[in-house]
């Protein structure tokens, strides 16, 4: 797989409503401990290698993959925490408001930050244990408006809290440890939407929650999308959750994209052997694949020394010599369906 390329990006001429475009994102970290560095070895973790993505207004892009595939690193690189090694992160590409976050710094970056918000995996850790819910949710307003806005700010905080299903009259003065995980995640969502962002990045927002609470939060995110006109980038390792929320899906493996496209196409006509293995490995395998396709090895190669050519070749049942030599580039296999594989499963176009 090892998919580079940008065939899957939507033509800005044809689609004028792309709100976020990530181009050739690369994120590398120095690897190893002091010993390695003392020995003069400069190993590098290739966490994200040449990933491009775009999202249209009102769309939900699901990014799915296993641990170490770079999906969370991608999310953090988009919000510049930390900044990517290279690549562009364009907010509102092609519009007057176009900003390349990766090329912006200091107060200019701070000023565009409200347009792009994020919610995190750990609901407890996401909230400052020493501040009240009102302070936490109103923080964005407090940063960006003058003191005279007080009453207006309070009304806004109340409105957003009600929208996430928390009663401000009872909850606003309390602190995070008095809430359950699901309620903390609601408060995190309220904090993120209070500034009316264009894009909301959700990094595994339901993974830390109990099964019986997940659906509440997923439904809430859908409601918030409608209510506040949000565009979501939804990162998760859970294929069923991504299926539920996404319009478009990107499958990642070892820092690269495998397959990108319309969610129905990916789930109903998966073309990449890794996507197929993922779908076959789910506790209840997707009907579009044979359960036997889950038989890929357990050994995920190290991102310090990723395989040459296609990064999935070491576990791929279809790998041949060519896969080690030539890196597959993302190419179209259907309407809005792109795959980075030399030997994808092809489906009769319907």
């Amino acid at each position, binding site marked *: 797989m090892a998919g580079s390329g940008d065939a899957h990006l939507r033509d800005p001429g044809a689609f004028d409503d792309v709100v976020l475009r990530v181009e050739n994102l690369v994120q590398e970290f120095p690897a190893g401990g002091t010993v390695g560095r003392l020995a003069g070895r400069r190993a590098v973790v290739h966490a994200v290698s040449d990933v491009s993505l775009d999202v249209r207004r009102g769309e939900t892009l699901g990014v799915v993959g296993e641990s170490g595939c770079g999906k969370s690193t991608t999310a953090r690189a988009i919000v510049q925490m930390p900044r990517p090694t290279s690549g562009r992160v364009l907010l509102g590409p092609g519009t007057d408001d176009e900003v390349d976050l990766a090329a912006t710094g200091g107060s200019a970056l701070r000023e565009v930050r409200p347009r792009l918000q994020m919610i995190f995996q750990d609901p407890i850790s996401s909230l400052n*244990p020493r501040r009240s819910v009102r302070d936490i949710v109103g923080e964005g307003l407090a*940063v960006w408006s003058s003191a005279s806005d007080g009453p207006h700010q309070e009304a806004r905080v109340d409105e957003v809290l009600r929208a996430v*299903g928390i*009663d401000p009259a009872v909850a606003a003065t309390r602190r995070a440890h008095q809430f*359950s995980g699901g309620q903390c995640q609601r408060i995190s969502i309220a904090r*993120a939407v209070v500034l009316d962002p264009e894009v909301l990045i959700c990094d595994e927002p339901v993974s830390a929650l109990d099964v019986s609470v997940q659906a509440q939060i997923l*439904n809430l995110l859908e409601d918030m999308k409608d209510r506040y006109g949000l565009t979501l980038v939804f990162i998760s390792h859970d294929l069923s959750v991504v299926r539920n929320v996404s319009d478009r899906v990107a499958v990642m493996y070892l820092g690269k994209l495998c397959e990108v496209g319309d969610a129905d196409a990916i789930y109903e006509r998966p073309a990449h052997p890794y996507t197929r293995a993922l779908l076959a490995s789910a506790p209840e395998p997707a009907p579009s694949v044979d359960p036997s396709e889950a038989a890929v090895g357990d050994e995920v190669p190290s991102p310090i020394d990723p395989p040459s050519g296609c990064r999935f070749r070491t576990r791929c049942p279809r790998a041949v010599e060519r896969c080690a030599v030539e890196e597959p580039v993302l190419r179209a296999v259907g309407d809005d369906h792109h795959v980075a594989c030399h030997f994808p499963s092809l489906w009769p176009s319907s």
Partner: protein
Amino acid sequence: MTEQLPPDRHPRQQRDAHLHVQDIESQTSVQGGYEAMLGGLSFDDSRGRRLGVTFWCAIGWMGLVLVAAVAAPWLPLADPDQTGFGGRLDPPSGDAWFGTDGNGRDVFSRTVWGARISLVVGFVAIVMGMAFGGTLGILAGYFRGTVDRLASFLMFALLAFPGLVLALLFIASLGPSLTVVSLTLGILAIAPVGRLARAATLLYAEREFVQAARVLGAGHGRIIVRELLPNVLVPMSGLALLGMAITVVAEGGLAFLGLSVADGFSWGKLIVMGAAPRTLRDGPWVAMFPIGAMFLTVLALNYAGDRLRWYLDVRELAFER
């Protein structure tokens, strides 16, 4: 918002998708214990933690010492420097509660007055340690990188320097005034406080709520003051009380070397004076009462500091995985 579920989407799911406070409170009345559980469904208010009687005893003792020290000039006490208030080395009695010393001065009055200098030294030193060490530690922990390397080097240098030598150096060259003694002990407090502040900051700076503040566009100053400081102050407040206890004892140590405040007297100095062999034999109360006052105060500070840290450490595990 609340309900956007189409009604009767699922026959068994008649309740609101988001059971929240209002829903709970508007429910039909049920059994007491069960109702309590519904309350628990939304908020976990049960702190279940008490500071305890001992803590309040400790606070009470510290309050008493503080009030006595501050109000000493107005209290109906004998002049602590008045020789011949009683006889030489009179044992404790109704007139002189703690007895008198070798010069016939009232030991009770001297113990109360001695608290003034001991507490000032302890307080100034720890405030200085908190201000400089805390700032240094928070900046190091938040910015990491070069700032951290510089600050850590400074703190290691301070830790590596023998404290007693530093105190001797300063006091011998600048003279044993209250200011010099306090500041010297303050400098010695910077490194331990700084290390703690740095460690606590490192812990919290990794947390998602700090990242969330950055994503909202908050600047460094705001993040440090609003997000980090309230959290870092918790372990630091515990340490401040412990540090004050250590400083009070350290000042006593300096007194034994003849390095404590020249004019006036602290508990340490009173103990030294009472510890002269003949005084100790003929009038042990001269040393014992200042020792008792110092012991109880240090004990109270230690206990209160420890207890406070435990109490303020909010339970964040409202739910477990």
